[in-house]
């Protein structure tokens, strides 16, 4: 029976694949696939949980499907089931099913009917992988899927500018969360010298032993995890994205940002609790973060004048409280609170259009004019200040830009002098000589051997930064992203353990996706005008090129569809514990690269397609 746990992942995955091949006009067929998939998952989790409870409710661990194995590296899939899994799956499956039924009618005749259900099934697959994952590697697959499906649903109305811009915004924050997981994975490898599974984390003595010896590493891993959790659950300082994500059809906002997706940070904390709770500093940090989020969330919620923003901030405040509950070890309360909050906010979002009918009726019969406040000056001062700061959402959105994106942009712009030929020629020369050095095992002076990986990592980072800020030359930007992968591979290649096979394995995915991306851009260039200075919305008239290019971008960004995905983790494994700078470069590289690629896709294929013969939405619409 316990091996049947894979059904939770295979079923939605199958549903997703089937839904992809059904023609867009077959609304009924598409919705039935979603209906039966989510319905069966919901029934299956009930059966499974009952079976599990009858059998003593013991933690299950289903080990080891090896995805890739080389001399000193293995990528294992590992599944895990305990009370947290059970609760999360129970409520998320119930909601996924209810929303599938709801959306069958609600989205009738909507242009993106098929896209909606494709994305939703992909999302369910991602969530189930995360929730059932038994180690960081498995969790990371789901984590990536969640990020991409979020991007696609926020940008569901892709012919308008704001959804696309906000999708990019949210994707950027999600990317930070991804890096949290990647860094946690990287250091875990070094801490445990194996693929640590979550079940091992439950062994308190084992964990204590390691953390005692490697306090700093443990601290670093914990903060990486908390970073990931905070970003995905819109906690301080990442809170501003949640309300901006409410751009898709209401049911998608309800399941993603009202309930299942936004609570996933809580899940991550619960799952890794045995690890970080050992460290009091981390515990206090989680409590502090939860408290801060609870306060800023509820202050902001009180002054929002649009329903969805109000619900988003109320939810953030509650999740803040849940963070505190988790840190205090009140896990059953946290689980109940989480489930209740998810249901409540999902339902509030779904019925949010009714608020006009309801409150206007209330107002009509119960209206009382606001009394002139006779507050003393200081009370009024505080009241007004809270009002203004809440209305400005604590300026968190602006701060994200100022402290995260603006520095990256400025750095990228420093290198505007680079030309395509230069980049290619220099890269080719360096690659060639490096290959010879590595192959011939030439002994370099110690200092140089030590510095080379860092320097190359830095060059790779410059390339993606340049690609991220490029406004005119699309092909050049695309090429830079590909090149940067090569620079990283070579950088890590200087670390002796990274074999040629590993390099080829990693780069094969890059070559494949890079080449196909080039091809799609080339085909589009023959038919339409575009650069990276504006949004062109070509998906409207070049659907297949858009789809192909999206796949290329995802693959190149390390989405689990080519070997690049495994390669990323593989690469990190070979970065030594003391190469902090290289780890920093590589992780920032992955963040910026992902954003740069989605930015390219968004600018070329999404946003308003400006033609005289069809409606062109206003920028602010």
């Amino acid at each position, binding site marked *: 029976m316990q091996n049947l746990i894979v059904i939770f992942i295979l079923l939605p995955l199958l549903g997703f694949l089937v839904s992809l091949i059904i023609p867009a006009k077959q609304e009924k067929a598409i919705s039935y696939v979603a209906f039966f998939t989510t319905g069966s998952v919901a029934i299956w989790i009930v059966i499974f949980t009952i079976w599990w409870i009858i059998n003593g409710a013991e933690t299950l661990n289903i080990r080891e499907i090896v995805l890739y194995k080389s001399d000193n590296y293995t990528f294992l899939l590992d599944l895990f089931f305990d009370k947290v899994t059970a609760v999360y799956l129970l409520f998320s499956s119930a*909601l996924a099913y209810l929303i599938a039924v*709801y*959306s069958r*009618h609600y989205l*009738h*005749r909507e242009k993106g009917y098929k896209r909606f259900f494709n994305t939703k099934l992909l999302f369910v697959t991602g969530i189930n992988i995360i929730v059932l994952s038994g180690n960081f590697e498995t969790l990371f697959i789901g984590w990536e899927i969640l990020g991409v499906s979020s991007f696609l649903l926020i940008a*569901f*109305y892709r012919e308008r500018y704001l959804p696309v811009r906000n999708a990019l915004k949210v994707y950027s924050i999600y990317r930070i969360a991804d890096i949290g997981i990647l860094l946690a994975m990287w250091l875990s490898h070094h801490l445990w010298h194996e693929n640590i599974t979550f079940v091992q984390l439950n062994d308190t003595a084992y964990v204590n032993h390691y953390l005692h010896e490697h306090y700093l590493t443990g601290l670093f891993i914990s903060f990486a995890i908390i970073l990931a959790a905070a970003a995905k659950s819109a906690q301080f300082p990442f809170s501003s994205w949640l309300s901006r994500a409410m*751009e*898709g*059809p209401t049911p998608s*906002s309800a399941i993603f940002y009202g309930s299942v997706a936004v609570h996933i940070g809580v899940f991550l904390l619960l799952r890794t609790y045995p690890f970080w709770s050992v460290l009091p500093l981390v515990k206090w940090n989680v409590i502090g973060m939860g408290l801060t989020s609870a*306060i800023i969330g*509820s202050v902001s*919620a*009180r*002054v929002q*004048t*649009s*329903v*969805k923003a*109000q619900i988003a901030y*109320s939810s953030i*405040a509650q999740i803040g409280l849940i963070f505190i509950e988790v840190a205090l070890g009140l896990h059953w309360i946290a689980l*109940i*609170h989480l489930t*209740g*909050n998810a*249901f*409540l906010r*999902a*339902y*509030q979002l779904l*019925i*949010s*259009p*009714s*608020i*006009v*009918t309801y*409150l*206007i*009726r*209330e*107002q009509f*019969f119960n*209206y009382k004019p*606001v009394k002139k406040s006779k507050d003393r000056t200081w009370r*009024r001062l505080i*009241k*007004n200040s809270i*009002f*203004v700061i809440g209305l*400005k959402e604590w300026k968190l959105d602006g701060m994200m830009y100022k402290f995260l994106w603006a520095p990256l942009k400025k750095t990228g712009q420093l290198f505007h002098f680079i030309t395509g030929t230069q980049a290619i020629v220099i890269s080719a020369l360096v690659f060639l000589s490096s290959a010879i050095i590595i192959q011939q095992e030439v002994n370099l002076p110690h200092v140089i051997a030590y510095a080379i990986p860092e320097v190359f990592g830095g060059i790779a980072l410059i390339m993606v930064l340049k690609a991220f800020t490029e406004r005119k030359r699309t092909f050049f930007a695309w090429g830079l992203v590909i090149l940067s992968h090569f620079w990283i591979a070579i950088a890590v290649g200087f670390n002796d353990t990274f074999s040629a096979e590993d390099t080829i394995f990693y780069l094969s995915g890059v070559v494949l996706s890079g080449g196909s991306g080039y091809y799609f851009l080339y085909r589009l260039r023959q038919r339409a005008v575009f650069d990276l200075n504006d949004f062109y919305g070509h998906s409207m008239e070049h659907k297949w090129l858009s789809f192909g290019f999206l796949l290329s971008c995802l693959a190149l960004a390390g989405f689990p569809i080519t070997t690049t995905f495994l390669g990323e983790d593989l690469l990190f494994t070979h970065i030594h514990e003391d190469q902090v700078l290289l780890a920093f470069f590589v992780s920032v590289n992955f963040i910026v690269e992902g954003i740069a690629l989605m930015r390219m896709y968004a600018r070329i294929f999404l946003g308003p397609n400006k033609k*005289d*013969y069809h*409606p*062109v*939405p206003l920028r*602010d619409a």
Partner: protein
Amino acid sequence: MTSKQFDADSCLKHLQHYLPAQAPLKDFVHHNTLHAFQSKPFFEALQQSHAIFGYKTALSLNEYRALYHNGKIAEDVLDWVIANATSETALTDRKNLMLNFPQTVDYSRKIGELRKFWKKGLKLDLNTIVHLNLFKLVGTYLDQGISANPFPAQKKGLLSSIQSLEQNTFFEFFHSKRVKELLFKKNKTITDLLVILVGDEKYFEQYLFDQQFAHPGWSGIVNVIEKNPQTLLARKHITFADFVYLELLLEIDALDGIYGAGKWPSIGELTTEPPCDIFQNELTTKEWEIKSWWQEAYEFSFYDQVLCGLKGTTASQSVKTEIPSFQAFFCIDDREESIRRQIELVDPRCETFGTPAHFNLPIFYRPAGGKFNTQVCPGSIQPEHIIVDDRTSEKNRRDLHFHQTSHGLFGGWIIAQTLGFWSAMKLFVNIFKPTISPAHSSSFEHMSHKSNLIIENVNGDKLNGLKIGFTHDEMCTIVSQELKKAGLIDGFAPLVYLFGHGGSSTNNPYYAGYNCGACSGRPSSLNARVFAAMVNKPAIRNFLNSTGFSIPDETQFIGGLHDTTRDEFVFYDTQNLSARNAELHSVNLVTLNKGLANNAKERARQFSSISLNQSTAKIHTAVKNRSVSLFEPRPELNHSNNCLCIVGTRAITKNLFLDQRSFLNSYDWSLDPTGELLTPILNAATPVCGGINLEYYFSRIDNENFGAGSKLPHNVVGLFGVANGIEGDLRTGLPIQMVEVHDPLRLMMIIEQKPAVVLDVINRNANTKQWYENGWVNLAIIDPETKEIFVYRGKKLCLYTPLKPGLETVKDLNPIFAVTSENLPIFNLN
């Protein structure tokens, strides 16, 4: 231009004229989206507004061609249109141009051409920085009850309130010192700010247009609220000038914040182009000329069928002899066309009438316990009367999901862990068994059965300066005028029903648009009930019978309501029926209910999600469920496909299947030789029906700009508007779900009367005349004596002979309904 002093007031006035005129959600009323251009001929207006704003105003050439290839535009009609067109193009070339002229690809607009220099010159997206703050600030000032903390420093006016807020806070909205000074300045003028931002005076007007039309939704709502403050229940004092001043302040503050005060160039210094005269007249291009031919061909392909059908039936007009089984008044609303036809099919002996369902009552209504007056007559009327429900209040159902408690920190903590699980149950129940909930907006709720309405004013009582009810004389005038207009002065049946109408929906911010247009977006049940009560009064009867009417004493009037979403009737005050009439009523109920079920079935064909292969009763249940389902964005299709308004006797339309596409206003030409009755009919029906029709036309053609886009991502703002997401501009117009099956045709007003009388009536009112002269509404006249048809084209009447030889006759429509959800042609019944 430079020599003249910039006149901010007249510039703003000019600007306001072009803003969307849509009222807050609860007062949603249809109007011509391009009202600002109505003084121009239709196609000129289309071309010009397209050139100015970049909005799409007609189908594209390729879309017309697709219609032509699908047979929606008839070949012979097309030939007729181009043969009659006045054009410089040689007759022989015209068709070739229509089929092969290349359509324009490159997009351009005049608005925004100056503003883009912020981005070009400073690499700065000023909109992104300023708009969200502006929307939030104004949103929270106008908010009607979404936020828990209302704007804390309410003073009279937007700017003075912000001043008061800014004086008493640790965190300030503005950062630049000079902006703060400008905010607190005594004599504030927009010109001062424009000097800073724009510099050169010759760009001022263009800058303001660019700025305001970057967010027409918010500018529009501010403008509407300034003009009708009573449209918000919690009144807010706001002026458009304050709003513009605030936006200019925010812009200066943003630029000062980035570059420092006075350290940035004005846009006049950044631009490289001379100022653009946005409103310069456009010369008609070849493409637009061709488009106008296509549009007319498209329209006449449909009109021709109708005129052909009407010509056929007028010839066989029967003279009524026997007393009908019952008579029923419905609204002129296009949705009532089908219910009338269905009831007449069930009982051919009954007689139905169409009239604007405010029933000639210029009134406000105040329900029991209500704190406000609700206007229940057309928006153009300033009522002086009010109908009051003289009872204590009723309890409303409550739902904690909508209340503030759930958004507080501790309230939320408790509610999430308790009510949260109840939410899941509620969702489950509503998905599988939709029922009425507090989220529902029901047409029956408008006025309770138990209401105790004060109709007669004996002592001259007043409420808020409004007369409560009507005096005897006033009632006499209202009733007699109304019945005469409909052409009903004798031959009364024992029972005369008067149906108001309204719609019911759940989870629908557009609920007001589902109700009666003649009652300002409210159900017309009250009006029907009050009118019935008046005409049942013996004193009124006596008066009527002494002035040319012959109403038998046993005849009784019953007020009722038709719910157009659910297809249900309710009747009011039936306890007052005589024993014999009560019996007749129960017989009629069978007929009426059958008509309702058949009507539901007819409508269901267009929903395409209801199977028609089941019993009529089951279909009817499925139709009713749509009104209470949370997940149904199309509870009904409203005015979709409206494109006709027929003013005449029922005899000419009775045998036609008009597929809910026609407003029907009863009018007996023989009672009105001077056009005295026709005048109020046309003055009311032209703007109302024309407004509905054009709103549908524009929302359908450019759903992104004139329409509200898909309603699925909509987010309610302040209870008065909707936006996409939290950062977007307010959306005006109709969502795609309301217009997607609509064929974008202009309305044709068809009047059964002598041409000379009609022309005389139209000439009496300049506003009405403009609609026809400029072609915003088409006009056809059927001469009841000669049976000739005249069409009003190029400001004169032309004799029109339908191109179609005759209509297809269909005995039973059901087989057709079962196989297609497409828009159907006009059929002859029996």
